Every structure is written in structure tokens, then in C-alpha cells.
């Protein structure tokens, strides 16, 4: 069966869809009240964020748009030092979408939300003309424990820069079909709640963290250097590498430092916490390949990121410009 405009009509067909797919998988005490607004408990400082997901294909190696829509928002909340609590979701379904595909996506969303320990408390569905696709928006709310202050502005000279794993896996998982290249690379889409929670629990003094999504590591670090007014120096040789991702990028003239991820975090911690942090991250299921990749060397009003290349050259990294197009030329 496929989605038709009737599923968005607001009548019985819509109600059927909500019951048979959304409540079935995502249902909880708050969502199933089906009121116009969800009412939840709060706290004194909350983080809120929103993100829309339009990935094509909606199912790819290692994940799907449902898992992605939870990971993206949950990881954004974590970056503010928040404990992710509640999500809302808006579905834009395109006519022609297979109901079975929708159900797979929603069920994957439910599993990911469970893994991340968040409740989906409100939702909406619309149907538009289209060609069988699906967009999802998720908004999230997280509670920030008192005394916790995580921000790029807190980055200090001497901080160690740690990344939680290899770069580019999500991007490759999406791009490989479009470029007709086959490999075993799976998307890294993952909620990093456990990893971050155990860093806090063990007293690691995280100054700042950011999930490495679109634009890749280079873009994220360029932004962080600019907003903290520091110079970040990386060692190219210390970047954790996945050989398949590296060759995939070389084939297309791309660089792993500009490739997107959906389950990788970059942390800034004081050098005294480096070993402890690395140990904790590597013990997490999503952090096996974590590594220290550089340090914050000094203040720099404009902010700069310098990478010491394999041969000892110095290369300045800029935020990605435009869209990361495959480059055969």
C-alpha cells in the first residue's frame, strides 16, 4: 500500500495511519493522550533545538531517516550539556510512499529514541504531492543540570582536541549509491547519550563539544576556532582513518575532513583530563576509534585551524565552501 493524499486529509484515514503506525511504534503515556499540546515536566534550564531531515535515499547502509532524525536532534542537545528528554516530530509524507517503508522508518525511530532515552511526546503528519519520499522534522528539549556550562566560548589554550571516531562514514553511505560505488561502509548515525553521560559522570571537565555533521571536521573546527578566538592545531597523521572511506574520497577527489557524520563528536578538554576522557570514549560502543587529534595552541582573535600534514607542511583549514561536490575535475 502507498500513501495517497487521503492520508493527510485529517479524517479517518489519517487517524488510521496515526494509530496503526505512529502510536503503535512511538506510543507512550504523553503522546497517546493525543491532545493538541503535550504537557511535560520541566526544570530550571532547558536546551531546545530543531532539525529537519531530507536525506535521500530514506534508507541507507547502517540506518534510515528515522534513526537519523532522532540522532541529529539528540546529539545537538548533548552539545549544550543537556540531558535529552523529549522530542516532537513532524512528518511530511510524499504521495506514493510505501506504507511498509514508512513503518520501517517509524519503528527505527522508536528504537533509536529508546536507545537515547528520550520520549517522543508530540507529532504531526502532512501529505504533499511528490514521488514517494519522506521528510522529518524533530525538535528536542533537554535539561541542563545546574552548574554545567558547555560552550565553544569556553575553549582554552592548551585544551586537547579529541574526536570520537573515524570521519565520513555517514556521507559515504549516502553518496555511494548516487556515485555507483559499492562498499561495506555503514552510516555512523548514533545517539551519543551514553558516551557523553559517562564523561560527565566521571568528572571530565568538558569545555566544549560539537557533533561533526555537514561540512565535516574542518568546518566544525573552523567555526569553533572563530567563536572562541583560538588557534587549533591538528596532526593529519593522528586522524582516525577508515581505509574504505579514505579511498572512496580519493576516487571522487573529496577529503575526509570535509565529509559529514551523524554520530561523531569532537571534544575540547583540559590536558589533565585527556587520558581519562579518551579511555571513557573508547569504552563506549560508538567510540572505539577515538583519538586525540590536536591541541588549542594560543589565542587568535580571528580564529584559525592549522593542520600539520603528513609531510610536516602546515595547511590552513577553512570551513567548507558551497556544497561538497565530488570532484573528478
Amino acid at each position, binding site marked *: 500500500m502507498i500513501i495517497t493524499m487521503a492520508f493527510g486529509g485529517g479524517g479517518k484515514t489519517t487517524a488510521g495511519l496515526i494509530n496503526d503506525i505512529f502510536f503503535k511504534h512511538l506510543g507512550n503515556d504523553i503522546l497517546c493522550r493525543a491532545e493538541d499540546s503535550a504537557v511535560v515536566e520541566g526544570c530550571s534550564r532547558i536546551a531546545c533545538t530543531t532539525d529537519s531531515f531530507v536525506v535521500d535515499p530514506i534508507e541507507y547502509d547502517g540506518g534510515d531517516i528515522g534513526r537519523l532524525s532522532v540522532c541529529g536532534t539528540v546529539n545537538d542537545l548533548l552539545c549544550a550539556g543537556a540531558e535529552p528528554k523529549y522530542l516532537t516530530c513532524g512528518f511530511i509524507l510524499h504521495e506514493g510512499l510505501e506504507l511498509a517503508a514508512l513503518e520501517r522508518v517509524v519503528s527505527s525511530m522508536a528504537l533509536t529514541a529508546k536507545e537515547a532515552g528520550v520520549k517522543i511526546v508530540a507529532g504531526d503528519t502532512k501529505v504533499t504531492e511528490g514521488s514517494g519520499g519522506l521528510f522529518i522534522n524533530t525538535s528536542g528539549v533537554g535539561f541542563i543540570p545546574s552548574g554545567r556550562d558547555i560552550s565553544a566560548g569556553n575553549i582554552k589554550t592548551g585544551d586537547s582536541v579529541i574526536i570520537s571516531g573515524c570521519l565520513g562514514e555517514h556521507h559515504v553511505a549516502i553518496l*555511494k549509491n548516487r556515485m*555507483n*560505488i*559499492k*562498499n*561495506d*561502509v555503514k552510516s555512523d548515525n548514533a545517539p551519543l547519550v551514553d558516551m557523553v553521560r559517562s564523561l560527565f559522570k566521571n568528572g571530565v571537565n568538558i569545555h566544549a563539544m560539537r557533533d561533526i555533521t555537514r561540512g565535516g571536521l574542518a568546518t566544525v573546527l573552523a567555526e569553533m576556532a572563530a567563536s572562541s578566538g583560538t588557534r587549533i592545531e591538528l596532526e593529519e597523521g593522528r586522524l582516525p582513518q577508515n*581505509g*574504505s572511506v*579514505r*579511498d*572512496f574520497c*580519493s*576516487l*571522487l*577527489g573529496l577529503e575526509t575532513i570535509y565529509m559529514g557524520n551523524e554520530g561523531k563528536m569532537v571534544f575540547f578538554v583540559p590536558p589533565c583530563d585527556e587520558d581519562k576522557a579518551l579511555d571513557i570514549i573508547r569504552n563506549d560502543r560508538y567510540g572505539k576509534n577515538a583519538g586525540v587529534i590536536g591541541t588549542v595552541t594560543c589565542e587568535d582573535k580571528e580564529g584559525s585551524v592549522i593542520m600539520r600534514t603528513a609531510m610536516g607542511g602546515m595547511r590552513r583549514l577553512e570551513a567548507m565552501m558551497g556544497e561538497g561536490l565530488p*570532484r*573528478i*575535475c
Partner: protein
Amino acid sequence: MCVALPGTVKEIIDERYVSVDFSGNTVKAASGLVDVHIGDRVLIHAGCIIQTVSEKEAMEIEEAFRELGEN
């Protein structure tokens, strides 16, 4: 423009194409410009094999270097 990478021929698909492996990436590559066999190291550009890669480089380069180093 001329991005090209060496890989290894894994399979002869038909008279036009072979599959080539690059550290776990499989690319279907046109083989009409060179004679290739399974196991050959080949250079791929834009989905096409443009040359086989030989291992004689080290030797030849050393020869060139001996000559150049002598001044």
C-alpha cells in the same frame, strides 16, 4: 581534473568492464584501453582504466636518482 587512483582488478565482468577494488570500494570500470587480468594493479580515472601500474618504479627511480645525485 585528472584524479586517478590505483586499485586491483577483482573480476572480469564482460568484454567491456571489470570490477576494481580500492580498499573495499568496488567500482565498475571500463577496460577497453588496456589489457587487464585479475590481480593487476590498475589506474582508474572517471570509471575507466587508463593504465596498469607496475612495481618497477622503485628500481627505475633509484637509477634516476643515482644519476642526479652525482653532481
